């Protein structure tokens, strides 16, 4: 992939990826019948093992049946927008063709997600959490700084910083692509949501969906809605549920969600420190290089031997941090969002329950007064049906959630441990061989 980062522009130039990029994280754990090992984009000469080229070599999990397969085959970053090429393969009759692609932006994903949330029919399902907005601000700032400081740096420093910046940009880019893809795959994998009409439009309609971002007024409305919702949520949560299963789930999810939030924040901080340490080692390596070229005495040979060691060590440390980010931090972040979605489901059910009980009370009152009984009866029927429908699907959804969660954690923890081992062994080997050389010298 060619990535030309020209810092004299004030915006990042278009960043393009090709088919070979990483696709989704495997937070879905549907049996990986079609587990494709996508090669992560190469971020520079990599002397580490072949399977781990690039920071993100991930599996793609897709539904076993080939009736609907969705992925993001390409992505383009220009200015502050990212354009995703959503590629669909389907044997369903709903679509005009068997295979097609459209270009979508982040706002359209959000539109799709919100349409699910607002749809009463889906009240009984865990709505797959929306992907986070692509955030290149930090990188863009750095890019600007790089451009401004171009004159004051040596050529090597400049190229090195440029490379680092490119790698960082690429990593963020890959992440956001993966997040968007996970969302789509989850929807495609869900037996009910995959049939949603909006989803099909999203996949197929090759014009702009004209989804504008929310204007100020709508954002304010949203804000108030959220306030009301959380107040309501507290009320609803207070109602004790007759059903043990749901009562347990309620308490469990509340606690779990908070703890995942905490763990996610702490893991982020830990990984940031790790990255800083890796950067320091890198700086040490470059000073060692300069010393190696300048120093006259015998110490010189030590510098020249140490420079490659430290520069490789720093790369490994950076890789460790990146892997921890991928396997641990991202996992926690994702389940933070999913557990929120599960909590939302419970809230909706609770709300329906309260409505049902209120309808019952209203019916009793109406019967007592013998006024508007029919109306009360129908409304009670509606509430009852709604509640029962939600309860039924909610139970299955929550069970699935647990299965998914356990499997995802297992996979990621195993991979995390394996990667940590690999890197530690790599470090060890480098250090031991360098030590051998140094000690062997007199």
């Amino acid at each position, binding site marked *: 992939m060619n990535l030309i980062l020209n810092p004299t522009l004030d915006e990042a130039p278009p960043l393009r990826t090709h088919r070979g990029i990483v696709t989704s994280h495997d937070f879905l754990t549907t049996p990986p019948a079609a587990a494709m090992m996508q090669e992560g984009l190469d971020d520079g000469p990599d002397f580490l093992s072949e399977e781990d080229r690039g920071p993100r070599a991930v599996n793609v999990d897709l539904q076993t049946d080939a009736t609907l397969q969705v992925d993001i085959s390409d992505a383009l970053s220009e200015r502050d927008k990212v354009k995703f090429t959503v590629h669909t393969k389907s044997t369903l009759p709903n679509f005009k063709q068997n295979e097609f692609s459209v270009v979508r932006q982040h706002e359209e994903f959000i539109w799709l997600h919100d349409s699910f949330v607002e749809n009463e029919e889906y009240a009984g399902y865990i709505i797959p959490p929306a992907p986070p907005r692509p955030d290149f601000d930090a990188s863009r700032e750095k890019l600007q700084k790089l451009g401004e400081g171009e004159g004051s740096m040596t050529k090597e420093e400049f190229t090195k910083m440029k490379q680092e910046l490119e790698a960082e940009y690429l990593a963020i880019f890959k992440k956001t692509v993966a997040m968007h893809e996970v969302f789509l795959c989850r929807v495609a994998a869900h037996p009910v949501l995959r049939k949603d009409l909006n989803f099909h439009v999203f996949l197929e309609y090759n014009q702009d969906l004209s989804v504008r971002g929310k204007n100020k007024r709508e954002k304010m409305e949203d804000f108030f809605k959220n306030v009301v919702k959380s107040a309501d949520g507290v009320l609803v949560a207070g109602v004790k549920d007759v059903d043990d299963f749901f009562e347990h789930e309620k308490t469990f999810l509340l606690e779990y969600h908070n703890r995942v939030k905490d763990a996610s924040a702490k893991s982020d901080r830990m990984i940031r420190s790790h990255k800083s340490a890796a950067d*320091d080692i890198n700086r040490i390596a470059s*000073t060692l290089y300069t010393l190696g070229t*300048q120093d006259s005495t*015998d110490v010189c040979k030590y510098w020249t031997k140490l420079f490659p060691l430290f520069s490789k060590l720093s790369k490994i440390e950076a890789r460790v941090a990146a892997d921890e980010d991928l396997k641990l931090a991202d996992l926690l972040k994702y389940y933070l969002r999913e557990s929120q979605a599960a909590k939302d489901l419970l809230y909706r059910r609770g709300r329906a329950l309260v409505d049902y009980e209120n309808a019952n009370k209203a019916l009793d009152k109406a019967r007592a007064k013998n006024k508007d009984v029919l109306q009360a009866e129908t409304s009670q029927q509606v509430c009852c049906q709604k509640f029962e429908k939600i309860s039924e699907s909610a139970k299955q959804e929550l069970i699935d959630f647990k299965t998914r969660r356990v499997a995802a*954690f297992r996979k990621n923890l195993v991979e995390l441990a394996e990667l940590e081992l690999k890197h530690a062994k790599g470090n060890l080997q480098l250090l031991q061989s360098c030590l051998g050389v140094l000690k062997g010298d007199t």
Partner: protein
Amino acid sequence: MAAEMEPPPLGNAGETDFRELEDGEDLFVSTVTTLEYPEPSSPEPASLPAEDISINSNGPKQKDVSFDDDPEDLFAEATEEVSLDSPEREPILSDGPSPAITPVTPTTMLTPRMDLGARCRIEEDNNGDTFDIHIAVSDPEKVGDGMNAYMGYKVTTKTSMTIFNKNETTVRRRFSDFLGLHSKLASKYLHIGYIVPPAPEKSIVGMTKVKVGKEDLSSAEFVEKRRSALERYLMRTVKHPVLLKDPDVIMFLESSELPRAVSTQALSGAGILRMVNKAADAVNKMTIKMNESDAWFEEKHQQFENLDLQLRKLHASVESLVCHRKELSVNTASFAKSAAMLGNSEDHTALSRALSQLAEVEEKIDRLHQDQAYADFYLFSELLGDYVRLITAVKSVFDQRMKTWSKWQDTQLLLQKKRESEAKLQFANKPDKLQQAKDEIKELEGKVEQGEKDFELISKTIRKEVSRFEKERVKDFKAVIIKYLESLVQTQQQLIKYWEAFLPEAKAIA
């Protein structure tokens, strides 16, 4: 506990506490200051996160009695001697007297891995006395109270060299004593071209905390850092063959009472004088334009400038690394707790167990990071700091040479002027003034000759010193680098152990 310990007067029979050195055995006393344990016995960590353990490879199999005297002293273990099997005892480093650095040995890092083979080399100085001396600085103890309090350190010298009165001496010194020693040595030797190792720096903040009695981790670290620095300073000083024989040095190491070095105080008259002199020197340096006839000096000067710059950069990077590693350790610990909480609330039993295991692993890793940060610091960072200061001393020696040259040139100019005025007087026919002039000229001629000799001497001395310095530098760096890498190796090995233990747990999640 605050009472100052009066060391027994020299020559007292009470000194038999100390074991005699076994002659002809290990000659590398200085190698001792590194951590080398054939057996993994490590003193229990007191409240200190990092402990300095230096072994005296000279000899005693048991722990030295003197060091066990104050069990309540936090730092009693600082120079605990772990017994070594004398015949197999080998210096850690392959080359000659190793750098006098006392790396901190956090308790997890005490496994004995650093046997480098018995490649001893004897360095003889002019007297035929083998270089055999080891100095340990230990047992920092607060003496006095309030703002007049100070830290007293025990300085133990073990040697078989004949210039010393006894084979083993212990004295108590305070920080200003060290500074006083350095200032005496500097005034005696710097201007004739010897590179006098600089003393550790004063630190008002650090000392105030200690004085005020703040018994927290940072003041404990400060004292440990200082103790280690003082030890390195003394070892560097005695490694210099000329400085070793200086009576001030010997007195410092041996005499029980030392006159209080008040002139080292920052605000004393002497202190102010020093500052004025420094300023004057700086100005002079800028005005002296020396015709360098000797390319060697030009080259070396430039090299040292470059080296200074790079070492400072390196030092800054290493300090930053230490800081970030400490941060990483803290963050890892807090993540571990968070993961444990998460594991608690997870209702799938196998996953819950795995998460708790993860929390444990991360906790162990955080301690590992902490230890590694200490190694980074005490091995690498302090060495670099020492050398940055040493190079300043080297540069000042070069400056002294310039000053000597300048003095010589000035005297020559003066002579010339006098000769001119003598010539004038010849014609003016004033016999007594003429005689006076002739006498002055004679005197100045002598001075000019002396000036030239001085200049040549200092140039020669500097050449020797620089080559000695470079040799020492090579040894120093190599030793420290090897030790540092070994510490990194240990960390990685531990990491491998921890993750290998965790992996089956993760796989067991059903």
